[in-house]
């Protein structure tokens, strides 16, 4: 049950990368860590402590929940809630605006990748 308040943007790198990873599908801990580490996931180096600490707070805030799926009792799967998806969309919009602004200032080449 969510008891906290949803975090306002900007999100911490760990929370952002977890939301981004779970936007694709339900995943267990190590898959989320692996996604976060990849460049497309934000390149966030995260260990199990940070991951489960963040997931604990995100569940309390109602951003994610356990899906109940499990191929092993030690592997817990998580999924985004509607609130989590909205928070991710807001954060992506904020980042997109920042990138557009940087691009218009010539800090990022048009069509280039940051």
């Amino acid at each position, binding site marked *: *049950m969510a008891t906290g308040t949803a975090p306002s943007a900007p999100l911490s790198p760990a929370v952002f990368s977890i939301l981004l990873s779970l936007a694709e599908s339900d995943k*267990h*801990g*190590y898959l989320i*860590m*692996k996604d976060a*580490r990849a460049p497309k996931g934000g390149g966030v*180096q*995260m*260990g*199990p*402590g*940070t*991951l*489960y*600490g963040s997931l*604990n707070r995100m569940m309390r805030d109602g951003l994610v929940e356990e899906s109940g799926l499990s191929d*092993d*009792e*030690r*592997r*817990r799967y998580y999924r985004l809630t509607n609130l989590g998806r909205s928070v991710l969309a807001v954060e992506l919009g904020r980042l997109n605006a920042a990138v557009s602004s940087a691009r218009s200032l010539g800090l990022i080449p048009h069509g280039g990748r940051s």
Partner: protein
Amino acid sequence: MTQSRTSTDRLEGLYALALCLYPAPFRLSYELAMRQAFRDALQDRALSRRALIPLVLRDLFTSLAKENLAMLRDTFARPTLVFNALVLSALATGLALALNTIPQQVLRLGANDPQIQLADDLTARLEEGIPPAEALPAGFVDMARSLSSFVIAYDDQGRPLASQAQLNGQTPAPPRGVFDYVRQHGEERLSWQPILGNAHGVRIAAVVQRVGGAHPGFVLAGRNMREVEAREEQVQQMAGLTWIGMLAVILIGTAVFGWYTRPKAA
């Protein structure tokens, strides 16, 4: 292969030991999942041990600090708990201030008792027309060293006429404002610090009264406050220790109460 498995098992064992440092509710919820994630990371060929170990060590340090701080915050930073502790601390502070102030006032006021009678007696004798030198009781008091009471008679201008006591070989007089006040109100009780030579540290519990009659003037009865001030200091120390003790009890009580009433993990 066997050597690699032993190394993996050892690392997993060490990691499991490190997990004991997390707060119990967090550990109960996530220990198995964290160990599994660590095991998965060890088996991930895309992630070298050289990269994994520093990452996990960094993660342990930061997340241990974070989770333990969060546990302390959840346990002890609850508004009701903090409010109760603050109210109790304020009450303890008020009580300690009262324990400090009331006995000090009682001691200070009690320090005037003999002088009031001495001043009354001398004033009565002077108003009867007895010359000051004869009206004063016998004996000499060194104001700096003796704790005995003494009396001094002054004329209407505040100049000493006769004195039972001296400080550094002279008879001191209180500030002119004291005489002006006594001229209007009849009596003043004060802590007087005569300034004569190097005798700045001497403080006198003094009672000054107006003398009427044919030869108006003033009478001062005084006593060195050294012993009274030493007792006041003892009272202050006891009140300070009582205050610190009460705050310690409140702190420990709040910690124990906070721990037993802490929010339980979902």
